[in-house]
């Protein structure tokens, strides 16, 4: 009897929490239908965490986040903001305009904000999310600080869902603390694919992407992929290709023969 009532209470509480919790519109239902066709179809207004194991992977984390952010840019929401603590610039490197142009983003739309203290970093991030013309805000958190706790992330998440801007927290290391982020990505660089004319040259960025928390939609398989960043955005590297970068050739369209009405092609 006791156990049953406890179970009942828990159930009630869960229902109430679900009602209270403000879910951003349509992550589960509309994401697949409404978004642009792409590998990761994301609704706007989400708080993301992008984790990578080492500070040395800062390039991969930035590349992947910029890749996701680029898909959120709309004509009425052109800007992407990148926030960094001033004293971490030498440790992590600062985004480089020419490299961003090569990467496939308009450098004019990427604004950098360099702040001195963690509190200013949080203030600037929150201020930036509030602007209706900002598509995404990237916050580089080189070393974790106490002010960025669950409450802060909850604030961010609510504000993001209110205004429709997305926030990407770039985090480093193996530790994970409680956060209100809807999606937590884990990105690691992977040895790049084969260059067309030079087998020994590195080519397009290639990352191992793993969605540790959250899903991209109901009933979709958990994300654990190897992706390339190409001119067209993210491109999944065929699972059979393996890490050595031997991309399988495009499969022949065997069905085409069968679809022909007559037997001429087979006869010839």
């Amino acid at each position, binding site marked *: 009897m006791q156990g049953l009532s406890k179970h009942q209470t828990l159930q009630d509480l869960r229902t109430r929490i679900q009602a209270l919790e403000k879910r951003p519109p349509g992550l589960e239902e509309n994401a697949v239908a409404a978004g642009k066709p792409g590998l990761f179809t994301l609704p706007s207004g989400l708080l993301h965490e992008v984790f990578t194991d080492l500070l040395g992977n800062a390039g991969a984390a930035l590349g992947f986040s910029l890749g996701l952010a680029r898909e959120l840019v709309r004509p009425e929401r052109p800007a992407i903001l990148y926030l960094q603590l001033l004293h971490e610039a030498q440790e992590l490197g600062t985004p480089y305009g020419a490299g961003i*142009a090569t990467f496939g983003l308009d450098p004019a739309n990427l604004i950098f904000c360099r702040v001195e203290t963690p509190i200013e970093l949080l203030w600037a991030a929150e201020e930036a999310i509030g*602007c209706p013309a900002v598509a995404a805000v990237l916050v580089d958190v080189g070393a974790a600080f106490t002010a960025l706790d669950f409450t802060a992330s909850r604030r961010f998440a609510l504000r993001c869902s209110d205004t429709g801007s997305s926030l990407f927290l770039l985090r480093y290391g193996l530790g994970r603390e409680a956060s209100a982020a809807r999606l937590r990505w884990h990105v690691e660089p992977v040895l790049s694919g084969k260059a067309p004319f030079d087998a020994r040259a590195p080519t397009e960025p290639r990352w191992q992407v793993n969605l540790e928390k959250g899903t991209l939609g109901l009933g979709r398989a958990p994300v654990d992929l190897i992706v390339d960043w190409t001119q067209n955005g993210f491109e999944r590297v065929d699972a059979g290709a393996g890490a050595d970068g031997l991309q399988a050739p495009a499969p022949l369209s065997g069905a085409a023969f069968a679809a022909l009405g007559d037997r001429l092609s087979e006869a010839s």
Partner: protein
Amino acid sequence: MRIVAADARASRQGIFVSQSLSDAKAIVPDLEAREIDRGFLASAFADFANWHSNASPIVSVLTDQAQWGDLVLDIEGVSHLFGSEAIMLETLMDRLAELGFTVNGAIASTVGAAWALANHGAAQIVGEDARQALANLPVAALRLHEEQIAGLRHLGLKSIGQLYGRDRRSLQARFGTSLLLRLDQALGFVEERVTPRLPLVDHYAERRFAEPIALMDDVLMTARDLGFQLAARLEREGVGAQAFHLFLYRVDHKVMTLSVNAGRATRDAAHIGRLFAHRVDRLQGEYDAGFGIDMIRLAASSLSPLAQHQIGAFESADGAADLDRLYDRMASRLGPLAVVHSKFVNTHIPEQAVELEPIIARTEDDPQATPDRSLRRPLRLLPAPEPVTVAFAEVPDGPPPNMIWRRVRYRFVKTSGPERIGVEWWSLPEAMLGPSGGDKAVNDGSGLTRDYYIAEDESGRRFWLFREGWYGEGAFPRWFLQGFFG
């Protein structure tokens, strides 16, 4: 050592300015003499001058005569705010006297006449014609040199009145043109301008308080109200401003200035108010109201025409206005250099090709500097390239096989390069070029040519590193890590 200033009691005992200190001590053995602290006096006097801008916007300090200056206020069109010229003079002198200073002042139509009356006469107001008032003053009241005064005395010309109607040519021959110039300036025949201490502002709104205020919130609220007044004024003239200054006049004759800048010309009162609120956040401990603030003035500068803006109908929703407001807010709280964008510069040197320019002071893009998207450039650049240890490349000009960076060894699996970026000989200083012009610097490298390589280690990290100078130039070429690819 000479006497620079003496108080009333000392003067009664026979101490006078420019007397030597030993003479003075002989007259008054228990004389209390202190060495003059010019730096302190100058800064205190500058504070005074700033404070007086609450009486008139044009305040100037004449430094050619007194040790630390004479305060000059242009009260054209201001005196009615006090009631009349007489009341204004009395008010200003009284409030200085209340602070414990000995003050003398005069109002005249020329700077010269006012100076003469204030320094050598009694406090009074003189109209257009100053001849009568000046006639009985000593010639020293004309702001003359020591030698000129001595010379005039020698000739028996002791008062200014005696100079009226003298033969100008002989006066000029004896005492130089400056005597005539000073005389003409005092009498208004030659115009004399004062240079205002503070930048002149055409558009401002101000409020005086019967009781001094001290709370920052009150100041901000006043700034907001003044913003609305100023905005209405700017709108009437069809202009917007990019810089706004808030002057806080403290009761104890100090002036605090807060300035904010906007990315584009604006006259949005709410926005200006917000900018000041953020600017104040950045002040933290620096704000000190002292005994209170009795006047606040909000001034606008960097004006540019701003047409009436139609809202609705044909507005394009590109968010530019929203973004500008965001950048203004961030810059006012975080400092103007905090919010930057990439400005491309027409050069090959990677770290110079992109400058970080404050977004609120955006300049025109250089069309020749558009980045070449076919060049592979890293996503992240280290502000200062870091030296790395690289084992000898296997072949001349070959890629590095590994590196040690921040005490960690990275073995490279894939590499590409080199991309050679030469020295820009046309921008080198003459001394480095040598006799054959640019050829030498380019041909022998001079340690300025760089070979860039993209290298990927076993776990897929992609680095951008360069070798300084040409291969084989020194025994150990120096390698640097400059960036990371995605």
